[in-house]
């Protein structure tokens, strides 16, 4: 009786597991910790994560992209079709493009869009870009899935070299306190577990709000004045009137020693919205702001 049952169980398991398992060439664990299986390098990729699109372009593999979000504006992918938003893409367009891989945001497995895509048998890889370790893993995984490990290695090496160079340039130097702020009412800063905090660390600084309990806390100007950071790094968008010039006149801010001594640096928001191929550039920008004396001639 037990033998029959276990035999039935085996047959049951064999029937219900996905058929292509035996033929999967690549087996990866994505950013959410789920397993992704591909039988061949992906040729038709829809990327819903703008920074992953940037990475794909940096890898030189943008020809594999058949779909992007409407927020991706790089000239290299202007011909690639837009499928709409990042979390809520237009499913009709997604399916009409016949992708063999979809790159999605981490943590979106429960959305109806993701479930529809998975139900069709299309592999989905969740991109996690929380910090530099995740960045390197994503680069490696992209190389694997797109069948170009050499491009991935080249990009990783280059990024690694940039980060190492920045770290070396500030080795041994004292660490000033740094405020990274998105100016608002109230202003927003970053918590210790974000990649921006990591950038500050790499660039030889110390995050002045390292005791924050959430990743993007809103803090009072009063608290900023009280903590008197040595350096202020201001995130500015391309269309903002809130730059360092206005900061010099703002109540509270203008009495900061950092502001009065000109230790305020503007960094484009694109560099710090998410880690991507410009991570090294961001690290250099941070280093130049925190340790201008360490800038190579």
């Amino acid at each position, binding site marked *: 009786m037990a033998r029959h049952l276990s035999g039935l169980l085996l047959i049951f398991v064999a029937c219900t597991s996905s058929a292509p398992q035996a033929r999967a060439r690549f087996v990866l664990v994505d950013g959410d910790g789920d397993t992704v299986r591909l039988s061949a390098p992906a040729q038709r990729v829809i990327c819903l994560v703008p920074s992953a699109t940037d990475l794909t372009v940096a890898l030189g593999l943008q020809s594999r992209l058949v779909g992007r979000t409407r927020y991706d504006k790089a000239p290299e992918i202007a011909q690639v079709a837009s499928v709409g938003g990042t979390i809520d893409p237009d499913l009709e367009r997604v399916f009409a493009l016949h992708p063999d891989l979809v790159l999605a945001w981490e943590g979106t497995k429960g959305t109806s869009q993701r479930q529809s895509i998975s139900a069709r048998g299309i592999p989905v890889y969740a991109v996690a870009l929380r910090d530099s370790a995740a960045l390197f893993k994503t680069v490696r995984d992209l190389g694997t899935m797109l069948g170009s490990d050499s491009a991935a290695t080249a990009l990783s090496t280059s990024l690694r070299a940039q980060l190492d160079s920045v770290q070396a340039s500030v080795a041994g130097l004292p660490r000033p306190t740094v405020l990274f702020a998105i100016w*608002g009412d*109230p202003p927003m800063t970053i918590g210790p577990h974000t990649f921006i905090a990591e950038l500050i660390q790499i660039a030889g600084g110390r995050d002045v709000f390292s005791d924050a309990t959430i990743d993007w806390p809103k803090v009072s100007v*009063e608290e900023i004045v009280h903590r008197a950071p040595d350096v202020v790094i201001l995130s500015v968008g391309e269309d903002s*009137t809130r730059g360092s010039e*206005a900061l010099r006149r703002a109540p509270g801010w203008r009495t900061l020693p950092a502001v009065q001594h000109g230790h305020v640096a503007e960094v484009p928001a694109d560099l710090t919205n998410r880690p991507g191929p410009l991570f090294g550039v961001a690290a250099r920008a941070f280093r130049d702001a925190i340790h201008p004396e360490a800038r190579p001639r």
Partner: protein
Amino acid sequence: MTRRTGVVLASLTLLLVAAFALSIRVGSVTLDLRAVLTALAGRGDAATGSIIRELRLPRAVAAALVGAALAVSGATFQALLRNALAEPYVLGVSGGAALGAVAAIVLGGLTASPTSISAAAFLGAAASIALVLRVAAGVGPTLDTRVLLLAGVVVGAFANAGIFLILSIADVAAFRSATGWMMGSLSGSTWTGAATLAAYLVPTLVLLLALARPLNALAIGEDTAAYLGVSVERTKWLAFGAASLLAAAAVAAAGIIGFVGLIVPHAVRLAWGSDHRLLLPASALLGATFVLVTDTAARTVVAPTELPLGAVTAIVGVPLFVALLRRRRP
């Protein structure tokens, strides 16, 4: 002013002064009275002086003015609409203001400074009020209360639709900024902003005080008011205009702060009656105190993080409101 009125107002003023003093002393740095006075005089530590003179003081003044404006506006709407659940945003003010501000933040691009966002919010509020009044005035020869309420709901819903539309095309930064504005904050208070608020509040409050007796009568009925000699239509237009102006100015300065305009007049009525000659100034004082205290809490309770003021007034306001409702006679 009767003696009773004088005593009540004096007590509320003392309470406001205490809340003001607390708000100035408390924050990322807690200061005693002497340190505050030193900072006010311009001496002492530069950082502390900046905190007191440039940040806490204008913010406290703005908080008091916003609270007073919202409470007086709420009391007036409750009388005009003869409805205990009326509040400052009932004629679509919050929807219009939010639409203006969100549009400025998301679409304004290069021109979206705090001043222009505030101005856009005010314009949005004014536009929605004008629309509501226009709709109501077009229905009949007199300003019909029920039509006003309906028009307010409709205009508010329309504004909300506009807000969602604009938010759907916003990028992450603009989205965050827009929703942050809507949750209410006094963080960006400046002396100029406070002075503007005062310029709106003081004459409007005086006007409404002059209309105190007509408002008492209108709270019973329009016929009753007319038979007691009130110029009903003129009073309604003036009072609606004044109350809407107060709501618009408050929203432009601080975003959407709820519950103040609803609860404070109720509390005053429960304690001291519905005569607007006392109700209006008492609501102003108590509203100022309420917002001062909740704003202080918003920036100190989970320091260094600042909580949105609109959320704190709701969290504090809801249980207070329930308690107030229970105290009424069944």
